[in-house]
């Protein structure tokens, strides 16, 4: 009886550890997406660029970076858990990075540091939002306007 309880605790412990590794993996994926978005934008966009064009280019590059990271890290971390924060970081972060690089000259190390911070913040915000959405919704038929 004690052995099976220990075995169960061991299994639960490993499962918890794996769960923690996945949470950490979400941060890694978010940071990698942000850096993979910020670096090419930083290399491409400078103050000669029109801000609107720079923002659009940032969005396109960020989305492309997000898709590459999703393909690489999705199987390791979970597709949805990489996709949701990665979409925000790539698409909207890319837009912001493009805007910044068209307005001011920043060093590459600073661009990377800001990208890391953006990646961490977005993943944390998505995890918090996920917890807020968790409670079960019991309900009857939807209103037609909901669909």
């Amino acid at each position: 009886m004690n052995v099976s309880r220990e075995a169960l605790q061991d299994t639960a412990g490993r499962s918890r550890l794996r769960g923690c590794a996945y949470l950490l993996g979400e941060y890694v994926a978010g940071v990698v997406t942000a850096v993979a978005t910020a670096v090419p934008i930083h290399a491409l966009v400078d103050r000669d660029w029109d801000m609107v064009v720079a923002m659009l280019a940032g969005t396109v590059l960020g989305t492309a970076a997000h898709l590459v990271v999703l393909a690489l890290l999705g199987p390791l971390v979970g597709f949805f858990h990489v996709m949701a924060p990665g979409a925000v970081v790539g698409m909207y972060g890319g837009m912001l990075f493009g805007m910044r690089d068209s307005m001011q000259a920043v060093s590459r190390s600073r661009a990377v540091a800001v990208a890391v911070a953006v990646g961490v913040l977005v993943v944390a915000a998505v995890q918090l939002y996920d917890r807020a959405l968790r409670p079960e919704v019991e309900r009857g038929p939807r209103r037609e306007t909901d669909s």
Partner: protein
Amino acid sequence: MIDQLRAKWDRASRTYDWTTRSDEFRFGAAKRHLFARMRGRCLMLATGTGHDFQNFPPRLSVTAIDISPGMLDRARERARAYEGRLELARMDARALAFPDQSFDTVVAVCTFCSVPDPVRGLRELRRVLKPDGRLLLFEHVRSRLTPLAIMQDLLTPLTRRFGPDMNRDTVANAERAGFRVVREENVYLDLVKSVEAVPA
């Protein structure tokens, strides 16, 4: 059309276990929680490689279908390992070869993101489900959060080529097909949902 669909999922079957392994672990508990409601004679749609058999309660009678022979080949060993009666069959979800009111429970996991005419497929489920039966859905859907929904809309033309649509509103589709949703639970954000519905 159906041949293209079959070929797409046959191709996907080669890498399906690898690409979904983390999602299987992360959503395993939520699936077991949903599948605990399976009762009587059960139908599972779009079985894939049979990952979900391990999450079924034991000693059920389950008929599991998929359109792809490649997926079914990979599901066979998992079907044999199930502690209950589990039959595999190749079938299109939109044209089920079962009489009306045959099943007590119908289960679909990430199915109606891929079925070309989801409302028609869901109407088929309503037809084969007994009046007091249950539909259990575990599906990813279009988010109501605009930044994510835009991304899902942009991704869908790409993902559709080798897998599912990312932006379906499957809960609303179930209601259009004549189901009443009695329980809807967010599993991850509002992207992945666990849904229980009954014939309206």
